[in-house]
């Protein structure tokens, strides 16, 4: 990875620092709220979920769409790098920004599950699946935003991926292999869990790799 790409990744972390800091704080605070009781748990869970999704969307919107809309993309493309280099820097820079917030929020939520008596440990596999789903979801948003040339298309990708979170909760939650152990005293890492996780990881890898083959080969970038 050359100097320009490394500097651009650092630039992403710098320009998105307030999103990352705000998202990380909100994600951790949501977990703390969730510890305060049953109603607080629901509020905290909702805020936690919203924080992770919203931070991902904001990073993609501000990091890619706004850079294009506000004509700062020309400044970046005037630097000594290729289109593929730009895509690489953008993917790694925004992914690093998201991962900081995501890893702290997810670690805090897992800590809550394992350390707090009011929350059953059996919830852990579902939580892990939800966390990885949101990471894959972010990768899809990022891939879509890099590939889409218009704001409307990017918005469509965001709407579809947001709907995906509800679809995930309504389809994965009721799966017998998941729902049967969700409220149990110990986590059960069964074949259902591994199958869903495998699907999520496949989506994650494809969504993260796709821009390197599609967006990076685009002939026109402004």
């Amino acid at each position, binding site marked *: 990875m050359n100097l320009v790409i490394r500097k651009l990744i650092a630039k992403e972390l710098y320009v998105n620092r307030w999103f990352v800091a705000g998202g990380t704080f909100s994600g951790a605070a949501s977990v703390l709220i969730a510890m305060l009781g049953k109603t607080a748990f629901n509020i905290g869970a909702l805020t936690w979920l919203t924080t992770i999704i919203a931070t991902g969307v904001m990073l993609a919107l501000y990091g890619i769409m706004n850079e294009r809309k506000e004509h*700062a993309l020309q400044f970046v*493309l005037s630097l000594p790098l*290729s*289109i593929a280099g730009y895509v690489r820097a953008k993917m790694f820079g925004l992914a690093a920004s998201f991962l900081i917030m995501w890893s702290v929020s997810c670690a805090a939520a897992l800590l809550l599950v394992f350390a707090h008596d009011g929350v059953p440990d059996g919830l852990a596999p579902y939580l892990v699946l939800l966390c990885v789903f949101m990471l894959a979801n972010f990768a899809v948003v990022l891939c879509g935003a890099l590939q889409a040339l218009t704001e409307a298309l990017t918005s469509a990708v965001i709407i579809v991926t947001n709907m995906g979170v509800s679809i995930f909760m309504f389809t994965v939650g009721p799966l017998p292999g998941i729902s049967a152990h969700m409220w149990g005293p110990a986590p059960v890492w069964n074949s259902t869990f591994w199958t869903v996780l495998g699907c999520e990881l496949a989506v994650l890898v494809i969504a993260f790799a796709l821009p390197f083959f599609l967006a990076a080969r685009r002939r026109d970038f402004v």
Partner: protein
Amino acid sequence: MNDKHLSMHRVRKNYRFFTLDDVSLELEPGQIMGFVGPNGAGKSTTLRLAMGMVAPDAGEIRVLGCAMPADQAAAKRDVGFVSAEMRLLPHATIEWHMNFMKAIYPEWDGGYAATLVKRFNLRPEQNARSLSLGEHVKASLLLALARRPRLLILDEPTTGLDPVARHDVLSELLDVLRDERRSILFSSHNTVDVERISDSITFIDRGRIVDSNNKEDFLDRWRRIHLQLPPGSSLPELPNIVGRVTDGQFVTLTTNRFSEGLRALIGPHVREVQRMTLEEIFVANVMHHREARGQ
């Protein structure tokens, strides 16, 4: 070996409603080329092609010896690009941008950057989002100039600037040319700016290059000839006449190749031969080519 700073050969780029066609350009070291055309003529597209931001559908582009867009990372190491449309990163200060450029370009000249900050009256601590258009252009120019690139590609850098800011920017560009290893390709629809700093000029209209020559040649060759013809007489067939306006017995001819031979051909009816400004030459040239193409 290709020692030209920029060469474009028969470049074509198709869009849905616009085609840049058969564009050929050459920029030598030490040269400052004004790239003039009306709005929508294809100036920005040409410069973006030169920067590798868009790829041509046909033709060949080389910048500092590197094929574009394939080797753009290597070429852009020594190219500064500023566009009136371009914005800096909105959430970062000018100082952050300067440090960013310093980290990327080992040639970054901190002393020169500090001089330009003062000359352009910029405040390094100011956030890019709060910069006016003029400040934005000046800050972008500072970032491009302080790394002392061999080639500067400037897309309408003086558009929207007040006269004082324009003067500052143009003076700085003239300073750049004191180093004869450096060159500038400078697009504008403001012929006054182009006339002031360019030594060669290329006119583009509706996606095609209509003329390209050095500035002095343009100014020497183009003339407006005012005649008064006696009643009943007519002009002989004249060469190199690109425009003709008749008002009764008064005729105004525009020529793109004036010579004393042409004056002699017209005869004693010539009342006045006027030099033309670059703007007049540009308009006459464009109109002539549009007529020739039946547009």
